[in-house]
């Protein structure tokens, strides 16, 4: 089931400009929100049941309410460092509808009582940062950001900050360190950013899609928004689908749509004559599911119950023409490269997992290695400052559990190949 809230008019030429955006009803939600008390805006967000669209799926309204009240300076940070393998939805929003993000940001800052905000865009998104920058200039000139916005007395400054290529900076505390001009190392939590974040001040961090949804909620009302989707996963979600499907791309779905409808209905399924071997429901950090799990309802809790997660809403489909070892190797290589090195289980665990997988490929592994590898994954999970290590351990662990026979067969054939080469040499 699809419904166009975030993607309404998305392909309209010039939607990225203020003129077209306003003609399409843009900034009406901001005008409405500024006449409301911050608590009332917050109440709408809480009533909407909106859960963060960046990966963790935490209740947005609750997150805002964790910020200290009163006149203490609070920071609002938009996480636009989309770098989860398989995710490309924020790119679309930044490029095609930057004003909606700005509108959501200003409304959120009003609710949170923040006067300073930052948008951290990944360095690779050159075009998207330029589009956003142009939109920010327009919004500033039109008085939607700056001092005394639309005469409401609310003030907000927005700084567009560009990253320089590091997956870990999508993790919120690493992002804060990066924004402070340091290496992007995650911080120990607690203290959580809501208490001690950017420059040690209370900080609210939200994903692009989450903030872009805020104007929609203000427009239709939180209670109305909560009627879309299923009880614990309300609203629509942008899903990036890629890999072995006929029509990869971004689709807006109602949460609770069966995954089969997304993979086969919207994306056309795998190419003729091939079957789905496994799929990642929420980016490469999510444990893999098999073809028989495709009937799961695509929402936060159903996917968690199925042993995986919705994450950032990025489906990667792998068909039966690909050896599962190739998939595991790609994953391990990525996380080994991107580990910041601060915590031992992640730094060493990603490295050893990659080495063990390469041993399988070279025919030097023994079946015992699978058990060792599985235990390495278990020892990473939950033992680091951030979840980067877990992000490898979860999919690799699930691959070992679900594709054990294939890995063992691969091992054996690689070993025999190796032995044959030795004999012939």
């Amino acid at each position, binding site marked *: 089931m699809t419904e166009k809230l975030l993607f309404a008019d998305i392909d309209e030429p010039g939607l990225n400009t203020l003129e077209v955006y306003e003609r399409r009803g843009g900034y009406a939600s901001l005008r409405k929100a500024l006449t409301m008390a911050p608590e009332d805006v917050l109440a709408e967000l809480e009533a909407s049941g909106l859960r963060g669209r960046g990966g963790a799926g935490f209740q947005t309204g609750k997150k805002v309410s964790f910020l200290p009240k009163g006149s203490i300076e609070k920071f609002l940070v938009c996480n636009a460092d989309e770098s989860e393998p398989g*995710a490309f939805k924020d*790119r679309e929003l930044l490029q095609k509808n930057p004003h909606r993000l700005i509108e959501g940001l200003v409304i959120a800052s009003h609710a949170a009582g923040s006067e300073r905000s930052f948008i951290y865009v990944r360095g*690779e998104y*050159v075009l998207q940062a330029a589009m956003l920058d142009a939109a920010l200039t327009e919004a500033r000139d039109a008085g939607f950001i700056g001092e005394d916005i639309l005469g409401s007395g609310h003030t907000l400054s927005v700084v567009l900050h*560009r990253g320089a290529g590091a997956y870990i900076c999508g993790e919120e505390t690493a992002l804060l360190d990066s924004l402070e001009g340091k290496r992007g190392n995650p911080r120990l939590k607690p203290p959580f950013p809501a208490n001690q974040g950017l420059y040690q001040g209370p900080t609210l961090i939200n994903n692009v899609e989450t903030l872009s949804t805020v104007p929609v909620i203000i427009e239709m009302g939180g209670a109305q928004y909560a009627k879309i989707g299923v009880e614990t996963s309300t609203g629509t979600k942008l899903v990036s689908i890629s*890999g072995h499907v*006929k029509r990869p791309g971004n689709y807006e779905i109602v949460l609770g749509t069966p995954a089969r409808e997304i993979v086969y209905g919207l994306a056309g399924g795998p190419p003729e004559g091939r079957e789905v071997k496994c799929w990642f429901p929420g980016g490469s950090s999510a444990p893999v599911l098999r073809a028989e799990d495709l009937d799961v309802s695509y929402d936060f809790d159903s996917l968690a119950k199925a042993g995986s997660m919705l994450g950032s809403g990025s489906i990667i489909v792998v068909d039966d023409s690909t050896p599962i070892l190739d998939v595991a190797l*790609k994953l391990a290589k990525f996380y080994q490269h991107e580990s910041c090195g601060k915590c031992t289980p992640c730094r060493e665990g990603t490295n050893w997992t990659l080495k063990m997988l390469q041993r399988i490929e070279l025919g030097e592994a023994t079946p015992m290695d699978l058990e060792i590898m599985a235990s390495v994954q278990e020892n990473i999970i939950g033992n680091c400052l951030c979840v980067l290590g877990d992000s490898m351990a979860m999919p690799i662990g699930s691959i070992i559990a679900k594709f054990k026979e294939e890995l063992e067969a691969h091992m054996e054939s690689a070993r025999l190949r190796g032995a044959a080469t030795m004999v012939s040499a």
Partner: protein
Amino acid sequence: MSASASGWDEPVDLEKSAAEIPDPQSIDVPEELRAQIEEYMSRYPDPRSATLPALEAAQRLYGWCSPEAFEQVACVMRLTPADLEAVATFYDMLETTPVGRHAIYVCTNISCSLRGADVLFAAIRDAAAAEPEEFNVRSFECLGACDLAPMASVDGTYVGPLTVEDVPRLLEDARAGRTVLAEKQLAPRLVADPQANSREFPPHPAQEPEPR
């Protein structure tokens, strides 16, 4: 505490920076670069936040983060060159060795590799190998354009889906500084365009594993 008192039983001062902040008198910073960095510094409550944009500006000017670039940025930002080098080595887009003029990042992460990115990367790398001063070809982590898989970012412009046949023109366009593969650019693509999205699958790469 006198200098001679520090010995093996004295704790190391971890807060102390390893090198001195360059003396403004002795470092010549191009006026434009200085103005740019100072403008970045003025944007943030803590000027140190300007580290990434400042290093990027220096890299744009010099082609890479050279020792001179570090010194100059450090001089303007009142940091030590080591502070900056520590940051630069963390980020993939900041180069700490001299590289080719045109940055070609080929995504070889999972979604792209499922569609033949490893073969594509090898083709681009080999085609550009003779001109290391012209091209900086790198196998890059997910660039966030899996709908274009396999794809590459050429001097910041996203193009895809690419085939091996596109490689010569891609390099030529990049070298000439003109629009790269105009018909394959991300910018004009529609969000839900079945025409753009649906396409033939590339033949599956040969089962022979690539040497890693």
